[in-house]
């Protein structure tokens, strides 16, 4: 499912498995890729299996051989993943936190998912058809898929999940997309059909939601179901155990319809402190975590890391911005906002805080997606231009106190951001300095998340904020930018209103044709660039580090975890015997 949620900590450790974004390619492509990778490994790295040998007792003799056989995919071993937070509920519809979705994502499947190039492909559905008017989708489901308890999967499960999510008694936050459905039908045990009121572009992707087992949930109240603590799905991993606050363990599903995953066990360790997590990584007790730029750049090159870990970096599906309350007279003239954008040196943010691991953001989309468009109006660092624009609006330092003033009032405002995100705090501090240089005093206020949302965002009691959005693979931005979404607790909390943008968003949402949609969204990005309702700051990179014994990792537009079930550890490098 596509959840667009404000990310409060975009560098929290492995959030790479985005909800709805699943992994995998067909078996054939996988094996070809594998052979290719294997040959690359042998040629380029020249790394002999002897490297990690100290961990496997008794295999010293064999390690001298550098044959292809030693590096072939093998079943076995465990991957230990670190997480700051514990999952709360392993029934995906009921949880909105990243850890719950990360774990549940391995236990359940959706009808569709995104492949490595972010194109839609089937998961539980082997194919589908969309009617000419775009209102009906008919899914043809796979045969022979079984739930982890052995019961066969059918279209009834899909129907059940759909009914459950729109049921008013189900406390889920994800019902919105499914309320656009006019009618759902089970045509036969392997065919599921859904009809929409109006053509709805995000519709297909919304069917990436996790399908739940009807036979286990139908007679109970879902909030009291044991599946919250002990999930049963159709996915590549079977739930093994959950020790509250400590760890969650999953075991590979031998009957998985895409083939049994190579890594036998998935151990999700909860380590609430980032310093401790890094130490565990260094000591070799953790196999996968997300690093901060400093850790990535400077702390993972030494003795304890060389040869034992591989680092990856790729643009993450999110962006950080400085948002202005457009109801505040200070920010109502677009020239003021443009001036602020010119006054901020975005590249220095990327170089200084992200250490180069990121890209300047020009709009609300990730730069390498099909719907990204580089706007004509650009905002490189230009404090002179900023001052000039401000002067046009009447802001000048008339009393010589170093601050710009107008009608006797100095240019002072407060920016708020949430607690717990060091990068955002540092961003605020640097922006504060740059604005000070052109005569604007910006105060910083850091607020705990809940209070921030309820007291300030929802009640629109803010002047400016520094926050981030997690972006999805569909360009639909209706909920954030449409002028009808400015009600209390709705996402257009800056109160942006532009009739042309409204029309573009409506048309984009209800069109299927990619090229046509592209036109609408290109124009949308041009308008945003001109108006600067946000100063778009940067798109950071994800910086995962993974133990070197894991082979098969291939970065792609979708990230690295899309083919997780094809990762493996060669026999001789396996560390954990269980």
């Amino acid at each position, binding site marked *: 499912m596509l959840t667009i949620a404000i990310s409060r900590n975009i560098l929290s450790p492995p959030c790479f498995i985005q909800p709805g974004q699943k992994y995998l390619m067909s078996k054939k492509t996988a094996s070809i890729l594998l052979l290719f990778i294997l040959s690359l490994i042998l040629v380029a790295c020249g790394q002999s299996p002897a490297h990690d040998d100290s961990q496997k007792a008794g295999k010293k003799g064999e390690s001298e051989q550098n044959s292809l056989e030693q590096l072939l995919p093998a079943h076995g071993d465990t991957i230990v993943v670190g997480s700051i937070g514990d999952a709360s509920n392993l029934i995906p519809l009921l949880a909105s936190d990243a850890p719950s979705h990360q774990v549940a994502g391995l236990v359940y499947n959706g009808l569709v998912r995104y492949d490595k190039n972010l194109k839609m492909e089937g998961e539980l559905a082997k194919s589908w058809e969309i009617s000419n008017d775009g209102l009906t989708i008919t899914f043809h489901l796979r045969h022979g898929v079984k739930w982890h308890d052995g019961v066969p999967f059918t279209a009834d499960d899909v129907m059940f999940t759909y009914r459950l999510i729109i049921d008013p008694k189900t406390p889920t936050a994800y019902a919105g997309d499914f309320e656009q459905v006019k009618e759902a039908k089970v045509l036969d045990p392997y065919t599921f059909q859904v009809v929409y009121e109006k053509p709805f572009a995000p519709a297909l992707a919304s069917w990436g939601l996790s399908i739940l087992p009807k036979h286990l949930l139908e007679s109970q109240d879902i909030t009291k179901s044991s599946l919250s603590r002990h999930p049963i799905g159709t996915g590549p991993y079977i739930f093994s155990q959950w020790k509250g606050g400590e760890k969650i363990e999953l075991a590979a599903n031998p009957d998985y319809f895409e083939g049994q995953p190579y890594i036998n066990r998935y151990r999700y360790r909860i380590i609430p402190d980032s310093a401790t997590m890094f130490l565990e990584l260094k000591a070799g007790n953790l196999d996968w975590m997300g690093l*901060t730029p400093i850790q990535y750049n400077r702390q993972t090159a030494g003795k304890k890391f060389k040869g034992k870990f591989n680092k990856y970096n790729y643009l993450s599906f999110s962006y950080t911005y400085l948002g202005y309350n457009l109801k505040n007279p200070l920010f109502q003239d677009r020239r003021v906002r443009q001036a602020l954008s010119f006054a901020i040196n975005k590249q220095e943010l990327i*170089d200084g805080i992200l250490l180069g691991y990121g890209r300047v953001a020009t709009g609300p989309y990730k730069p390498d997606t099909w719907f990204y468009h580089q706007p004509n109006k650009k905002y490189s660092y230009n404090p002179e231009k900023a001052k000039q624009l401000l002067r046009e609006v009447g802001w000048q330092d008339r009393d010589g106190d170093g601050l710009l003033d107008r009608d006797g009032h100095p240019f002072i405002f407060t920016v708020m951001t949430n607690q717990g995100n060091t990068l955002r705090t540092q961003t605020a501090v640097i922006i504060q300095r740059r604005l000070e240089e052109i005569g604007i005093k910006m105060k910083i206020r850091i607020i705990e998340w809940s209070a921030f949302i309820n007291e300030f965002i929802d009640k629109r009691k803010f002047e400016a904020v520094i926050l981030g959005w997690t972006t999805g693979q569909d360009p639909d931005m209706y909920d954030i930018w449409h002028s009808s979404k400015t009600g209390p607790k709705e996402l257009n909390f800056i109160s942006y209103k532009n009739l042309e943008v409204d029309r573009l968003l409506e048309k984009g949402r209800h069109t299927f044709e990619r090229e046509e949609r592209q036109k609408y969204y290109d124009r949308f990005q041009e308008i945003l660039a001109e108006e600067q309702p946000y100063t778009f700051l940067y798109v950071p990179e994800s910086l995962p580090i993974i133990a070197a014994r894991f082979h098969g990792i291939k970065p792609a537009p979708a990230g690295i975890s899309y083919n997780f079930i094809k990762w493996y550890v060669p026999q001789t490098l396996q560390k954990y015997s269980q």
Partner: protein
Amino acid sequence: MTDKNSTKRSPTFNQRLLHNKLAVAGLLVVTLLFAVSILAPVIAPYDPNAIDLRNILIPPGSSHLLGTDQLGRDILSRMIWGARISLKVGFVAVGIATLIGTILGTVSGYYGGIVDMLIMRAVDLMLCFPSFFLILTVIAVLEPSIWNIMAVIGFTSWMGVARLIRAEILTIREREFIQAARSQGASDIRIITRHIIPNAMTPVLVSATLGVAGAILTESALSFLGIGVQPPTPSWGNMLTAGKDNLEYAWWLSLFPGMAILITVLGYNLLGEGIRDALDPRNYLKK
């Protein structure tokens, strides 16, 4: 004529205190802290908030004696200004606690009866809550501004002072000079402020000294959780926390604030104990 060996006048408070080497060390630390915080604008080599993105994470050296942090700010300057914050938090928090505790303890001890019972029950009630949990809850609910922190620490640590004062008052209340004052028609308030409180303050002084140390530690604990003194204002607690993710690589980020907290709290404790020992004449009576 008295035997020269057996009469030795009891040493004065100052003499007793200074004789205790540990207490002297504590006194030195406290004095140093005061001096540094007062002189902060003069002795800090850089502006503690001056960002220099080309010089981030520089180890201690000639240009930056204690190194720089993730935004290129000079650690030494931040440490010096941080001393001010630590002192401020310590003193204001303890000041609030002492004020509340003194008032309530005096009223309770002097008037007795129902008032006494109610106040002591309130003390018991407050003591039931693990104080850190209470501080946590309140700060999480309000915003973590420096004033809120000081106020909350103060509002949750007055109980010890109240009990101490009350105990002292109970002893002093019946003494002759009080009865004399009363018979002369002095009002309650006058008796309390002029005679009782000054005599009861001695154990409070000890408690206050130790309280400052406690407040500094509490601030560092709150900083770890993200709800201590807010950046960019430097406090030793938030500097220590900011350095914990890079503990080995950028050791200077945490070593200096950590040592500063350690030495300061140690100093205050030694001083407090020294004062307590010096105030207790029994320590110096020869057997």
